């Protein structure tokens, strides 16, 4: 037992949870304004590709991050235009965006990154260096949690609190609440509904793009086909389980990150003297997601105007 559950596991959980937290908060920004966002997965995947490619050709993780955010924004814009201007069904648009991202990222990977490998160039990305916490590293527990983390992890931890404050204490936050709960009433009250929704959807692109960049710039060191592996949907489940609340969503995302960390730990380490098969362990992040969704009933309170044009 002692070997499986320790502070290092929580440290890994924090790292695994970071993309989930970022994506879940992105989804939150979109869904609180009433726009369903099934397309998180695609934005993560495109962000992962753009992050890897940007960093690969310039050697700078910052350029990678910038490209990932930009691509996330573009895909979010596509969703915003489809749902707001063409009144496309939100779920259908999101699913199409996911397919587009899966096809396009693999297509670009084959066109831009694989030929480099064939020429003998490395496709390994120079990502972000671990964050130096200074004296904080010597604080018990906190030091162990911060060990070898990148600043993106810190950002993901601070973000839910920042959003919580912004949503509850600013005019913009009140407007988001109004638009998400009754867009018609908000419009008659003079709230620029469309603008608020565009901003919400675009923010989801920024955060989901960052989540993708985290995968290639701070977690794995290269892009692989479909490497988002369902994280966008797990983030959506976290958003629902966390009742569309920034702290709740981030907390739930951390929970799912913990299962991912546990999965990694149990590969090659027996639990109660029993080595679980690799494939069954790989199911670990997905099964709790289903169970969490099944258990969310009655506590679910989506923004009441969610999905309406």
């Amino acid at each position: 037992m002692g070997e499986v559950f320790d502070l290092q596991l929580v440290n890994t959980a924090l790292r695994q949870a970071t993309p989930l937290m970022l994506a879940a908060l992105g989804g939150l920004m979109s869904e609180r304004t009433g726009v369903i966002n099934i397309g998180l997965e695609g934005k993560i995947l495109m962000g992962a590709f753009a992050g890897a490619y940007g960093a690969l050709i310039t050697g700078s993780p910052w350029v990678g991050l910038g490209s990932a955010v930009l691509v996330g924004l573009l895909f979010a814009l596509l969703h915003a235009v489809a749902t707001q201007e063409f009144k496309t069904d939100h779920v259908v648009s999101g699913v199409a965006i996911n397919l587009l991202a899966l096809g396009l990222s693999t297509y670009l990977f084959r066109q831009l990154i694989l030929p480099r490998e064939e020429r003998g160039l490395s496709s390994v990305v120079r990502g972000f260096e671990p964050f130096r916490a200074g004296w904080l590293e010597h604080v018990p527990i906190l030091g162990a949690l911060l060990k070898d983390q990148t600043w993106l992890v810190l950002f993901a931890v601070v973000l839910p609190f920042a959003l919580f404050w912004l949503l509850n204490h600013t005019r913009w936050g009140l407007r988001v609440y109004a638009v998400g709960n009754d867009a018609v009433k908000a419009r008659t009250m003079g709230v620029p509904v469309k603008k608020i929704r565009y901003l919400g959807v675009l923010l989801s692109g920024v955060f989901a793009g960052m989540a993708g960049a985290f995968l290639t710039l701070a977690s794995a060191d290269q892009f692989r086909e479909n490497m988002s592996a369902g994280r966008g949907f797990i983030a959506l489940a976290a958003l629902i389980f966390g009742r569309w609340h920034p702290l709740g969503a981030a907390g739930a995302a951390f929970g799912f990150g913990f299962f991912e960390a546990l999965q990694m730990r149990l590969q090659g380490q027996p639990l109660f003297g029993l080595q679980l098969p690799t494939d069954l362990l790989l199911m670990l992040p997905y099964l709790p997601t289903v169970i969490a969704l099944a258990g969310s009933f009655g506590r679910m309170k989506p923004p009441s105007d969610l999905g309406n044009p």
Partner: protein
Amino acid sequence: MTQTWLRWLLNALIGAGVLFGTLTLLIALAGQPIGASYRILLQGAIGFPPSEQLTPLDAWDGVLHDMTLLLLTGLSVGLALQAGLFNIGAAGQLLVGALVAAWLGTKQGIPTSIHLPLTLLAGALAGALWALMPALLKVWRGAHEVITTIMFNYIALYLTHWLVVEYLKDPASDAPQTAPVLASAQLPPLGSFIATSWGIALAAGIALLLWAILYRAVWGYETRATGANRDAADAAGVPTRRRIVEAMLLAGAFAGLAGAIEVCGSQYRFFEGFPSEYGFDGIAVALMGANHPAWTILTAFALGALRNGTYNLHVVTGAPKEIAMIVQAALILYVAALRLRRGRLEG
């Protein structure tokens, strides 16, 4: 009347523009010559103009093979949508159906006369069971089926891989694959001239049957009413929960059958990396076919031709084979913006 036709024609023309625009752009970005690429694409899609590498019969076989799977996964997604559910889980349901079919198809001692129907039925049943959980979670717990079916796709991926490596591996081979299914469980080809199995006829028959049920039977009417407006259907006394679960079970069965047909009529075994992406292609097939079984036959054929054409382009020139998926996504967006103007899911 003339106006509707003009509108229809205009929409179709823009749709063709989206299709060929995206296709041309992707071919150009892949660094391939446009004219020659379209020639290769057409050779794969319709077997014309004749080429040396790919005979027309081979091309038609490829298209009909893809059409079989696309039709069944398209019916799967389309039927679920008729009931108001978005089944993104056809890929997982297909995998589970394929594995169960490969398991039963390799079993000795089953009377030869019923071996094949039993194997196909088992595949369909497995797919249905795989769809049951998301359906129940939807009606009982309100869990969003898009998320749960995606999660079940990943679970199916690892579960089938585990089973094929640990329990069902062909002892005669080192590869992670099952033994070939017995001759008694194989779907025969349509004729000596073409390799496509009778699975295509089975799929087309199911499409016609579903058309009749959806538009001529009370069950179909109630299911469509549930999808169109669940509250109104509830108020009218339709057992909407039952209809949703039943539609989802059938949807899973179609996808599972697609997997079983792929095993019994084409691959003859289950293996690591079994092609499950047909489940996602089914989304474009269903949406472009307006979730209507008859139109779905046409879109399955058209997208089967597109898939086979781009695959031929991939084989001949090395252009990425994801071109088909990107074009499909563009088409879904276009069709969705067109038909779902008022934010409704049904066609």
